[in-house]
């Protein structure tokens, strides 16, 4: 009672079972990520402001390159198995796993940056203006525009043009770091600890602005400002609850990272059991690599969509 076509292809379909299975599985994965991308579109279209330029493009580009490289190495692994070069294939498989680990590692650094990056808002225009003066030496239009750019990236775009002016200081979301770079601090947690003040290191102006000549102004980097807790109405790290942009960013990239880790685990299993398997059933082993590779290409492809959608657009 052997199940047929586990290794050799069925004549009329030209496929072995696992290949049919993985393609079907990938079809459902397309629907899963498709639903999330659709949600992204709907949320973005419905938002009055959509943040831009909050992610590190060079790091993202590098990570894209890492993932594309891993797609090449996994194909090389399969091709070498087809040629019967197990040892070479094993090296390529190892490289693929290293790339996967590298990708996840870089992503962790990026996440960490976000979890230690904070936004604050003040109770009223007076305290907010006072803060702007202390932090940036001015609370004029240009300063406020630069602060606004740190959150939404486009202070002089049509969005602001439609509203004729920037939001008043108390609605401005001022970004920066807390002293000691703590993770996940919230107003509630600070109040529970009876903190009276926080030390805030505001970002340089115009960080998110992409236009030429609007380079971040380094003059105010690392300037520490003490802020009274009583003056704050809002404090949040760049976490999923920060806004729908970060919510969808973390959901999409988190789910993608879970796929990367899953794929890496499968390939690690194939790596460590490979030699015995290859000696016993080389064709079956080659098929397994092919199936894992198909999944890996899909994971790569998802990132090819994620990168421009989240980092560049």
């Amino acid at each position: 009672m052997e199940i047929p076509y586990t290794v050799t292809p069925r004549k009329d379909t030209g496929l072995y079972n696992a290949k049919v299975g993985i393609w079907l599985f990938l079809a459902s994965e397309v629907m899963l990520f498709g639903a999330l991308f659709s949600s992204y579109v709907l949320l973005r279209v419905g938002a009055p402001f959509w943040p831009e330029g909050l992610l590190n493009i060079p790091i993202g580009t590098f990570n894209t390159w890492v993932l594309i490289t891993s797609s090449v190495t996994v194909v090389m692994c399969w091709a070498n198995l087809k040629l019967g070069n197990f040892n070479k294939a094993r090296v390529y498989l190892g490289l693929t796993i290293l790339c996967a680990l590298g990708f996840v590692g870089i992503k962790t650094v990026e996440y960490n940056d976000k979890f230690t990056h904070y936004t604050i808002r003040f109770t009223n225009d007076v305290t907010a203006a006072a803060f702007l003066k202390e932090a940036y030496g001015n609370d004029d239009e240009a300063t406020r525009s630069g602060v606004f750019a740190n959150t939404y990236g486009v202070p002089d775009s049509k969005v602001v043009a439609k509203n004729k002016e920037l939001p008043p200081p108390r609605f401005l979301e001022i970004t920066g770091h807390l002293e000691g770079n703590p993770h996940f601090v919230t107003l509630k947690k600070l109040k529970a600890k009876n903190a009276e003040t926080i030390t805030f290191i505001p970002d340089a102006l115009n960080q998110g602005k992409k236009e030429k000549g609007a380079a971040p102004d380094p003059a105010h980097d690392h300037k520490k400002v003490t802020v009274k807790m009583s003056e704050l109405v809002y404090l949040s790290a760049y976490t999923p609850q920060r806004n729908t942009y970060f919510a969808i960013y973390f959901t999409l990239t988190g789910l993608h990272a879970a796929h990367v880790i899953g794929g890496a685990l499968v390939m690690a299993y194939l790596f460590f059991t490979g030699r015995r398997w290859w000696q016993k059933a080389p064709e079956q082993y080659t098929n397994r690599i092919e199936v894992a590779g198909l999944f890996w290409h899909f994971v790569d492809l998802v990132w090819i969509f994620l990168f421009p959608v989240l980092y560049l657009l």
Partner: protein
Amino acid sequence: MAATHSTTHTAHEAHAHHEPGFWRKYIFSTDHKVIGIQYGITALLFLFFGFLLMAAMRWQIAYPGEPIPVAGKIIGWLLGAEAATMIPGGIMSPDLYNAFGAMHGTIMVFLAIVPLAFAAFGNYVVPLQIGAPDMAFPRINMVSYQCFFMGGVVMLASFFIPGGAARSGWTSYSPLASMADLTNRVDGQTFWLIGMVLLITSSLLGAVNFIATIIQLRAKGMSWMRLPFFVWAQFVTGFLLLLAFPPLEAAGVMQLMDNVLDTSFFLPSGLVISGQPVDVSGGGSPLLWQHLFWFLGHPEVYVLILPAMGIVAEIIACNTRKPLWGYKALVHSVLAIGFLSFIVWAHHMYLTGMGTKISTFFQTTTMIISIPSVIILTALFLSLWGGSIRFNTPMLFALAFLPMFGIGGLTGLPLGFNASDILLHDTYYVIAHFHYVVAPGTIFALFAGIYFWFPKATGRFMSEGLGRIHFVLSFVFMNLIFGPMFLQGLAGMLRRMSDGGAAYSLAQNPGIEGALSDAIINLNKGVSMAAWGLGLSQIPFIINFFWSIKHGKKVPSDNPWQATTLEWQTPTPPPHGNFAVEPEVHRGPYDYSVPGAKSDYSPQNQSH
């Protein structure tokens, strides 16, 4: 099989062929038939449990504010510490009513009907019908059942956590679903979502397995147009599950984030609860949840009905002793339904204000999808024409399916037109409509399937006498339950009200135009009696089921119904690996009463 091997077996190999122990054989089995039976029994238990929830709710609807006799005490005892608020003095609170309502829907759809129709029958019958030794991926099949089982455990556990089970309806609309329980961080809704993720994983693995099996493991000669209609129905159902469920999984992940991590995927800006602004970032879209939910939700309707149609087709062909009328039309219709079911979802959302243009589009596609549905039903009706019908229990249930599904389907048309839907939306009319499709429709087909394939699985018939009692009582009570609901709905009685509409009755609002008359309110009592009667009518079935396993009439042969399809050409019950000889298919699935043949049936593996 072991006998065909030579005596050169090593000791190790011989050991591998030993009969597996109890755990390997019944609990962690990779045999599709055992897994099918596991699914079947688990799903039947959930079906009964889901019914009990409704039976308790029906008391509250018929006698609002009165303590539930006996059961009230039992429910209170089961709920323990939560009972004081949930069911004070044996009176069902609105919160408990909502929780039971939400869980009735969830359990019936995701833990009872789908696993029974798709997974249980599909697992047991499909590999046999296509002449395969097992499913393409037996271990994935086992994992699929285990995920399903764990999902069920999570759903059941949610009744006993602080705050109780999810209470935002089986549709779990946001923001209600995120805001229903503000005191507990991890609430019933969280459990619901985790349970759903497990169930979705299960059905995804199942769907991949079914489709791959049907594509790859068809026996020699089993071409596509020789597949029994049931296999076609399961094939299309597999694709529906494969492609429609992932968006709900995505939505579930997002709602889970909303509930646990305070994101705002589905929470709009400016949300105020009990006069307090909610502390979330806002900017989300409640409509997004509805779109994602119904993108699954509508194909899911066809997941519920297509396997049922497949079962009915098999039974009708066998018991009329003639080929199905319009086999090709049936196949093409089921494919058309599969495709169209993906573009009708927003007809559940006419009242959300999507806009008339979008409503018109979905109204049009909804009308179009009724065409293939009607073709299938018509073909099944026409199949009866000129047949020499055998009225055994499976056939009675299959025959009852036809008009019951017909009523359910036709009453859906006014809901598909957005003008009339505005009036009927969220009333008991909707409940009556979809229950006619699923309860006397699908569930009858499932009963038919159980009576029909029971002899294959056990080698014994179920009792005809008890079966007929079961059928007649179920048929009468089903109609007494759901028939009057059409009237209540047309009179404007809304669903989801824990007092059965009493607050909107003429008795409590004298002189108000449009208030519900006493006659409409009093139908509640009759419906509730019928519902409890339906529960009692299942006793003959339960007795029959267990009694017949050991004491039923033995089947005279491997093919007791003289059927043509391959599952009857195996030993009874089929051993691990299914077929004694690898089958080779020579003819279509329904060669009954072929002129000039020796008997009135020619099995698919019979050469000319």
